[in-house]
């Protein structure tokens, strides 16, 4: 559906919802809606990103299709969210990566793998690529330390700038300035850490993948989310070890970076598998399959990044270490390079929307 039609549909259903309000207790979207009487594009972008896609408002809607009002908030908001990601992408020229997201992401990741492979082959001593390496600094015999720092530093910085610009653009459009206090930030952060709005409103969980309330999505999302955070922590600790404590990778199993990485890596295997299964089991009316491409692409990428990490961990003292290191780093680099142009950005706008909600919500 073209953007104009999506926005028109969003406005149409919000007017129906605002006259009904039965879903008020499910999540933040409806109380936020009630503070409005009109639904121009910027308000719809805010409401759509506040939506966690839990499905309650669809399964409990007296006007859901096949009713002639055909109110389907999850589907419409999912469409509007995708448009938001494109609209607020930085640099704008790259917003096209959201189109055919699976192919675009695959192309970027293959490029980064090839790049790392090329780097390894051209830098490593002749024949070293397929030799076992052990002991501190073994990785750098395949991919030099400085090359790693520069490559990952540049890509990560680029992604952070893209997130910050997207956040700022979204924030500017989503409402009047509003003063952000520590309390607002705390509330929005807590809402994210607990995935509060996947609890269905009463704590039973959301109507996902089907009509019966379930915690499955919340649990698997948490696996993914905390898995990602643990892996990020692992990388950060490793960087500190390496650059400030002069302790060179690879690290022993019983070291902070590896333990954090294992815990996070398990999360990134279990979470994406669980979420993918749920997606394919989900009710196709609020979750049309055509809208799942970007989600599944991201889940597959997370899974492969983690899986190659484990392979590297297990086989790092064998001759396969060289190729596996290049492969894993290629995935990690590809993951970071595509973060601002795929499903990951939902985290940026969801947080912004929850922060906006915390700011505009009257203290109760």
């Amino acid at each position, binding site marked *: 559906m073209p953007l104009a039609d999506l926005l028109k549909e969003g406005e149409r259903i919000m*007017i*129906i919802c*605002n*006259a*009904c*309000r*039965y*879903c*008020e*207790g*499910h999540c933040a979207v409806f*109380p936020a809606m*009630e503070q409005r*009487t009109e639904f121009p594009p910027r308000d719809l972008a805010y409401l759509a990103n506040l939506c966690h896609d839990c499905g*309650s*408002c669809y*399964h*409990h*809607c*007296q*006007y859901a299709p*096949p*009713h*002639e*009002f055909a109110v389907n908030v999850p589907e419409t908001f999912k469409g509007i969210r995708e448009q938001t990601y494109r609209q607020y992408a930085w640099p704008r020229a790259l917003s096209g990566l959201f189109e055919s997201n699976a192919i675009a992401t695959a192309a970027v990741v293959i490029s980064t793998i090839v790049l790392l492979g090329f780097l390894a082959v051209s830098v490593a001593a002749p024949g070293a690529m397929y030799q076992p390496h052990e002991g501190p600094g073994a990785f750098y015999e395949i991919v030099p330390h400085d090359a790693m720092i520069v490559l990952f530093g540049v890509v990560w910085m680029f992604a952070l700038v893209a997130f910050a610009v997207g956040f700022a653009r979204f924030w500017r459009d989503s409402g009047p300035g509003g003063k952000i206090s520590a309390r607002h930030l705390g509330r929005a952060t807590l809402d994210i850490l607990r995935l509060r709005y996947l609890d*269905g*409103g*009463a704590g*039973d969980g959301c109507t996902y993948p089907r*009509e*019966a309330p379930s915690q499955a999505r919340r649990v698997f999302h948490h696996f993914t989310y905390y898995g990602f955070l643990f892996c990020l922590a692992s990388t950060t600790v490793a960087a500190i070890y390496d650059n400030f404590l002069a302790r060179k990778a690879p690290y022993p199993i019983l070291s902070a970076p590896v333990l954090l990485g294992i815990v996070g890596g398990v999360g990134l295997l279990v979470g994406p598998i669980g979420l993918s299964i749920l997606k394919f089991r989900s009710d196709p009316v609020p979750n049309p399959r055509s809208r799942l491409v970007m989600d599944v692409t991201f889940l597959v990428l997370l899974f492969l990044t983690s899986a190659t990490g484990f392979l590297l961990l297990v086989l790092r003292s064998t001759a396969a270490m060289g190729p596996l290191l290049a492969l894993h780093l290629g995935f990690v680099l590809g993951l970071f390079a595509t973060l601002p142009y795929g499903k990951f950005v939902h985290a940026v706008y969801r947080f912004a929307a929850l922060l906006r909600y915390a700011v505009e919500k009257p203290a109760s």
Partner: protein
Amino acid sequence: MPAMLSAHPIDVLVAGGGNAGLCAAMVASEAGARVLVLECAPRDFRGGNSRHTRNLRYMHEAPDEILTGAYPEEEFWQDLSRVTKGKTNEPLARLAIRFSAGVGRWMTDRGVRLQPPLEGTLHLGRTNAFFLGGGKALVNAYYRTAEHLGVEVVYQAEVAGLEVKDGAFSSANVVHEGREYRVAAKAFVAASGGFEANIPWLKESWGEVADNFIIRGTPYNQGRVLKALLAAGMKQVGDPKQCHAVAVDGRAPKFDGGIVTRVDAVPFGIVVNQDAVRFYDEGEDFWPKRYAIWGRLIAEQPGQIGHVIIDAKPIGKFMPTVFPPIVRNSIRELAEALKLDPGVLDTTVERFNRSVRPGTFDPGALDSCTTEGLDPPKSHWAVAIDRPPFSAYSLRPGITFTYLGVEVDRDARIFLKSGEPTRNLYAAGEIMAGNILGQGYLAGFGMTIGTVFGRIAGRKAAEHAAR
């Protein structure tokens, strides 16, 4: 599907898969009975009018998880007496009230989630618990629980006739996917709602004007079971000519428009009929106490239509409407858009404006803004309609439910015309609500009656079947 209709012996056959029928089915099943529910709607539209509801009123002596304060039996009874003006069966009404105590926990145990009143509802925090997600969420939860208990459900199954002899039910003729089945059971629970969606039946009381009625709820409430029960010699209760009707937007769908089609603008303006003249005091009392009379008032006007006219001042002060108003810069242009006589409407508005006396406008109180020398008067919130642009909503009668039903005893058992109770026929919900609600309505009380009598009917039917 047909296997369920013909294969095994059934203890309790429940006609109707709304709140009352599901409560009966769950209770009967919990008591060990084999239960079959016949729901005439397809799965997507299951639940009758319960899918459009949003709250339930229940008695409580002290604050609980959801409701504040206390709502004791006597106050509940007084509230009911006031709206029914004495047209109620006191023992049954008190039974419904007493039996409602603690019902919140019973519902929660069966998957329903309750919440305090929604924003902007009429101060129901002490008396009414709201269903999280609305009535369809409740219906979904009950179906899940019932199916988990082993209750069988057949959708798109209509009861076409009943075999009743000497007050004893033996079987029902059921039509499903074009085929007819004879379904025998030891007890029968009628929980199939009223007949408000049956326009020809409404015409018997209202005449051709019923064509202009909008039915707020399910199109599946055709009253077939009610008709079959009356034909089989059951005793009727409730005024067959009466129905509960509110004013809804004339653009509402013919059926199933539910809550969103209401228009709450009446106290903020004036209402004129097709002849562009006023016909009733728009500011008689608070809207929540008066909205229920406007359906009938409009049904009595020529063409069964009314037009509420407001100016720019009250915009944003009443609940948002699902359809936008017609907006024009002058009363005459507005009249043309509404196909009213511009001269007459102009005069009506001008006369109204001239008769408005100065006062302090307060939508939260029976304020001092009133008219003088106007017939009919506008007793409160009378403010001149003089600031363009002017807006109008066209209103039609929106039928919520009918009062005609079958008479029951304290065990929800249906009476025969002779005054003898039947042996194994029970009724719950709208089909017997007329025993208690002879007229008027009390917010959330329909669901109370359905839940209480559904539970009684389910228990008694299971006990009978076990005998």
